[in-house]
């Protein structure tokens, strides 16, 4: 690995100013589980690595009944699944953070980093999308907010502009009778990159027999994590039944644009989208009923 400069700013302003000055030559470091490996293998270049972990805002993990969850960009996975409020209110997010990498990786890896790495197969992005999460981005002009589903624009690329970095994520408070679920398919049982990932969230009616609304998002079947709005919309006002779930799964299957690579064939991926979407919806419904 070649040498690079390292900076550890203490404030958002300081970080923004460094990033603005160095532009593409600078890379943001939080857990480092992607960045360091990429630098070592020459897949990314950086003259300056900006470690944001000393900035207070990026370490925030707090919940309020109005504002929902504030998840700082540098909060590692283990802190998230160790948090009782998140466990209780956002089990769909717990699904994802507890299967990123292995135990050691989860001690360092962050949801913010997973998002900024912008892998189509990132495990935390589909659940963030179905939970309606938004990205709070800090930059030279102050902060702006972007829905998670609009954050990634291509493999490894995001909407972040020169001088900007991801400050935190906002996840709205869970509605009544709602639930979310994420699962993925991998050939082994851990430590693999998703062949397909599927997240779903549902809001059910008072009697929990009808869908009020639903959201479905997929991983590893398009250049970016895929929000399949029409699959969720198709469930609105439909009865909670195998048939309606299957219909939504079919829509997701049709929306997927998978490729064949060494991790899976396009046919297998498309098939898995149907199976996993159904299972994700079933999981989300189970949670909504238990809520």
């Amino acid at each position: 690995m070649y040498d690079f400069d390292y900076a550890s700013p203490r404030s958002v302003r300081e970080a923004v100013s460094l990033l603005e000055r160095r532009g593409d030559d600078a890379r943001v470091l939080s857990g480092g589980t992607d960045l360091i490996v990429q630098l070592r293998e020459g897949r990314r270049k950086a003259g300056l690595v900006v470690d944001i972990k000393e900035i207070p805002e990026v370490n925030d993990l707090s919940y309020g009944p109005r504002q929902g969850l504030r998840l700082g960009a540098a909060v590692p996975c283990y802190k998230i699944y160790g948090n009782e409020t998140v466990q209780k209110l956002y089990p769909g997010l717990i699904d994802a953070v507890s299967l990123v990498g292995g135990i050691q990786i989860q001690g360092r890896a962050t949801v913010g980093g997973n998002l900024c790495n912008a892998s189509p197969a990132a495990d935390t992005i589909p659940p963030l999308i179905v939970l309606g999460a938004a990205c709070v981005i800090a930059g030279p002009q102050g902060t702006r907010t972007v829905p998670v589903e609009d954050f990634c624009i291509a493999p490894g690329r995001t909407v972040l502009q020169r001088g900007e970095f991801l400050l935190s994520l906002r996840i709205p408070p869970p509605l009544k009778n709602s639930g979310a679920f994420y699962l993925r398919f991998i050939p082994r049982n851990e430590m693999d990159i998703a062949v397909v990932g599927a997240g779903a969230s549902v809001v059910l009616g008072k009697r929990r027999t009808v869908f009020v609304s639903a959201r479905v998002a997929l991983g590893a079947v398009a250049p970016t994590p895929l929000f399949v709005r029409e699959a969720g919309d198709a469930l609105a006002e439909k009865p909670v039944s195998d048939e309606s779930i299957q219909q939504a799964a079919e829509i997701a299957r049709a929306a997927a644009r998978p490729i064949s690579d060494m991790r899976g064939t396009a046919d297998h991926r498309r098939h898995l989208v149907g199976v996993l979407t159904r299972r994700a919806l079933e999981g989300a419904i189970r949670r909504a009923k238990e809520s």
Partner: protein
Amino acid sequence: MQQKMKKVKVTIQERGEPKEIEIEVPDDGQVGWGDVTQMKHIGQHIPRLDGVAKVTGKAKYTYDINLPGLLYGKILRSAHPRARVVKIDASKAMARPGVKAVLLPDDVKGLFNKECRYAGQEVAAVAATSPDIAEDALALIDVQYEKLPFVVDVDDAMKPDAAQVYGDRKNVSDPRVREQGDVAAGFATADVVVEATYRCQVQTHVALETHGTVARWDGDKLTVWASTQGVFSVRDELAKYFNLPATQVRVITEYMGGGFGAKFGARPEGIIAALLAKKAGAPVKLMLSRKEEHLTTGNRPSSIQQVKIGAKKDGTLVAYQRSNYGTGGVAGGAGIPAGPYIYAVPNFRVEQRDVSTNAGAQAAQRAPGHPQASFGMESVMDELAEKLGIDPLELRKKNDPNKTRQKEYDIAAQKIGWERRNKTPGAGSGTKKRGMGIGSCTWGGGGSGTKAQVTINNDGSVEVKCGTQDIGTGTKTIIAIITAEEFGLSPQDIQVRIGDTDFPPSGGSGGSTTAASVSPAIKSTTMLAKQKLFEVVAPKLGAQPADLVARDGKVFVKSDPSKSVAWKQATAQLADGPITIQGEWVAGYSDTGVAGTQFVEVEVDTETGHVQMLKVVAVHDCGLVIDRLTAESQVNGGVLMGVGYALYEDRILDSPTGHMVNANLEDYKVVGAMEVPEIEAIFYDEPHRGVIGLGEPPVIPTAGAIANAIYNACGARVRELPITPDKVLTALAQTQRKEG
């Protein structure tokens, strides 16, 4: 007096192909190990003595060797699958501060080849003051390649218009044929015939510790720390290369992290390390990266078997035909055992073709050829059983001539609950389905040619020296166990020193021969040393040496245990100083030829194709078990390597570019902790046969058993390894189409 001889069978490698031959060894009529029921340590569960040192990091592997002024070596490797080095300019690399030596093709004879035949072949090397500088320097070497046509896919390589891997010969070897009886006549009498093609991928070794060497010159004396399965083979190769007497080269391997057949001899990287050290005038450490490990250090060749088998209605096999081809890359054959694997078939014909491709050369890998053969045979046996309407277990028992395995079948069937299995494959409701399958194996595993030295000091301390190496199998521990048993001490009391060519010579650790080579040498040497001690002690106890026993830390008279001295009192009487005895391997304490069977249970998610291993019952014989715990470890390791082979591992070469696309551990998938099934290792004890090796057998039957279990679970017959989820689903869809 003429030495009495006896014949034993051993497995050797001939042109990359395992072959069983008969050799003569001295038969001294020894009674063997004696009454095992009276043994205190042998056959017990004894934790390995160096376990704590290993897990705490105290154990020093080659990677951990640091010397004053140490430099770091790195190898520049061919960037193309087939190319000619036209020009190479290292002036920028040499000018880089910190670079201390550069080796180019023209600098050294017979090491680098300007004709690069696979992506990863050695082109040049550097030594520098840090690994980063060395890496930097590689990038500064300017190589001009003339790119040439190549082929990496085994089937492409067989086409008439394929690029030739070697200019002077075809990619496909002439077939080697072995025949017995009359195959056509055999098939004519068959009531049922099954024909199918089975494919096995290329698997790499993936030892935890990569290949590597630390080399230091002191004048004309070369000392080398190497991650090797054979310290003496490294010494002899280096001595030959540098034209030095063997006495001037010392090779040390105190600890090593696995080899599985790919770590014999100095290998190019070992010679390069020594050359760099010589040129730089400083010690050099050269450890390969995981990527280099996948590309260049060996692999298990692929296998494509076109099989036809015929049987009578009652299941009696009458004819077998197999045509196998596979690739060992640029060198080495792809042979599998030449005959119907383990089952008796009166009429057979097998053909073998080796196919050259522009890929790294194969190397022996844990039971060379056997897992491929077993997968093909066990799969077709299951397909035959179904066509015949016979229980797969019954079909095996009917055609397996091995008496040990006959008993092992019953043990395994009972342990796994064979009667619980699906009687109709794929039966049952739900999306997750369970099934069971069988696979079996045979191996040689005999020993020979080891010398050892035992010292009993006046203070009672005991040291054993033997130039074998512990490749992770527990050799150090079994040496201590055998010595302790002989002297009536505890294994912890024995100082074992191995892995050094300064010690009495022993062979390489391959072919499951180490335990059967080392144990008899230790037994005979410690017996001689004990005899010496008894000769000194006997008069003081008023007895003959033959009447004495060493046990529980004492030496006493067998007929009157009250006449005794503590071990330390006994050794204090050694007036002539310590006893030092050299002994060697003798016949009578080891044997060759083992049989094993493995029954597995799996669960298949029929919607995703995911296979979950549930249980493996592994029944093996290995004669006398010295340490039951290390023996169980061998079974665990073999089974897991077999699971990886069956379900996950695959060296993927990209046909258009000729490069390996998964030369890492992210996409080259080995078994992880979450994939480990319950493994029940059961030993069919045959102590009267003496010690027989066990390292290889447990890997062999695993893939075939898993394939059969998947079929039993869900009705999907996958004839190609690794059995990935998409293959399971494709096979399931075909089954459903057939039914529908």
